[in-house]
């Protein structure tokens, strides 16, 4: 029976970041990738906590019934809450891709799904237009959910921006498979990393 390995956007992004990194902190970037590969839970950093707090605040506003028109323009929290209100929160998404010798189970957890759109809420200290255009996250989530719209809802606490991605299902599949293939080819050609991957990312789920 073929084995099944899990792949998440975090794993791919962490690998891509290290693989393409050309700066002075190579060691720390590599170590961060190794932690992800070994599925080691790292301590929550201040930036991570800010993101968690931001998301929780939005969820609590969106789930409450007190969101009124006059509140909407007060803060990015309210503007984002207005967009996601009525959606499904924290939706697990998965889809299997079969390779010759093994299967890959793509897995992610969408912050919100509403009608035809997957939403991801991002908190960042600095936002530049198109910041997430190379991310594998929107491809993986759209593919797993069979939806063709994805929006990043981004805030620095002061303002909010929306980055939309619309890709038809054929494009999503081919773009995603190409990114997954790059990772698979690389990892199966690097024994040290491959052994960790096979040990830590094997799954019995399907």
């Amino acid at each position, binding site marked *: 029976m073929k084995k099944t390995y899990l792949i998440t956007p975090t794993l791919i992004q962490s690998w891509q970041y290290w693989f393409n990194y050309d700066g002075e902190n190579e060691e720390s970037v590599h170590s961060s990738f190794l932690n992800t590969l070994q599925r080691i839970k790292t301590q929550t950093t201040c930036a991570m906590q800010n993101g968690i707090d931001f998301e929780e605040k939005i969820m609590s506003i969106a789930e409450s019934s007190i969101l009124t028109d006059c509140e909407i323009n007060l803060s990015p929290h309210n503007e984002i809450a207005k967009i996601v209100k009525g959606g*499904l929160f924290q*939706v697990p*998404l998965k889809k299997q891709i079969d390779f010759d010798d093994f299967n890959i189970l793509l897995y992610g957890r969408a912050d919100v*799904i*509403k*009608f*035809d759109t997957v939403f991801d809420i991002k908190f960042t200290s600095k*936002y*530049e*237009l*198109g910041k997430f*255009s*190379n991310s594998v996250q929107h491809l993986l989530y759209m593919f797993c*959910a*069979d*939806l*063709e*719209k994805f929006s990043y809802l981004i805030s620095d606490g002061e*303002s909010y*921006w*929306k*980055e*939309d*991605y*619309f890709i038809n299902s054929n494009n999503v599949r081919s773009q995603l498979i190409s990114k997954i293939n790059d990772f698979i080819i690389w990892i199966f050609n690097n024994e040290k990393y491959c052994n960790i991957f096979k040990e830590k990312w094997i799954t019995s789920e399907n």
Partner: protein
Amino acid sequence: MSLISKPSELLNKNAQNTVLAGLIYGEPGVGKTTMALSAPNPLLIDFDNGLKRVNVQYQKDSVQIKSYKDLIDVLQSTDLENYDTIVIDTLGKLIDKMGDYLSINNPKIKQSDGTLGMKGWGSVKIEFQRLLRSLTDKNKSVIFVAHAKEDKEGETTKKRPDVPGSSGKDVIKELDFMGYMSIIGGKRTIDLMPNECFHAKNSIGIDGFLEFSKLNGVNDFLTTQIFEKYSSTKAEEMSLRLKYDILIEIIDNAIDSLNTIEDVNDYYKNKYQQLEKVYSSYEYERAKMLKRTEKLGFKFNKESKVFE
């Protein structure tokens, strides 16, 4: 006048009723103003004297603007009723004039060197939002034209619209689409999909890469390739949304009526995720089922694949 519309007439009518805010930017000479004037029934607000560079046969009605106050006057006049799209050429000049106008009323928003400070850019952002809102309230689309500017990002350069000061991303936030226009292999192209070479925005869900050949007496590219396509996408979405709403009602009724363990297992075995999937209806059904079974105190056994 006939009450019957042909599909193409209807599409054109819908396109005229479609209100969009977009931006086209690119290098000088690629034909940005001509392209912007291919939007439905446009009026050119000409800050940049751009009309003279448009081939005479494609020129449209225009207003030469000297100050932001001139624009406010035009936008308040009844003449505007005759147009569906307002083309503002260029966005950079509009922002400059807006800043000048706001600082006349409130000189404190300018710094000692005459440039706008943070407060000034904040005022510009608010005024820009107000301008867009006033146009959309009047059911007018807006197409901005901008020059391209290069940003250094490490060793690479990335093109973005030339918008003064810190207003760029706040302005772009308000737009439905933003395309980089260029000439590739002799053909003019507009790309709405962002990549490592240029900024772009596509919140309207149409094909991101648009290519067009020579104009042959008709300049309607934006009307047919963006406004009409968006309008037909919207119509398709509306019909799917209706289908989705009906499915959700069916799912709600079915799951709310489950009370016993037998009901739940029967539903899970024979009906769960069996309906047509429209948008996120399967995810909705999953969440609904989870909530219902939790309420009833049943748990799913992953081994036996039944609720207990």
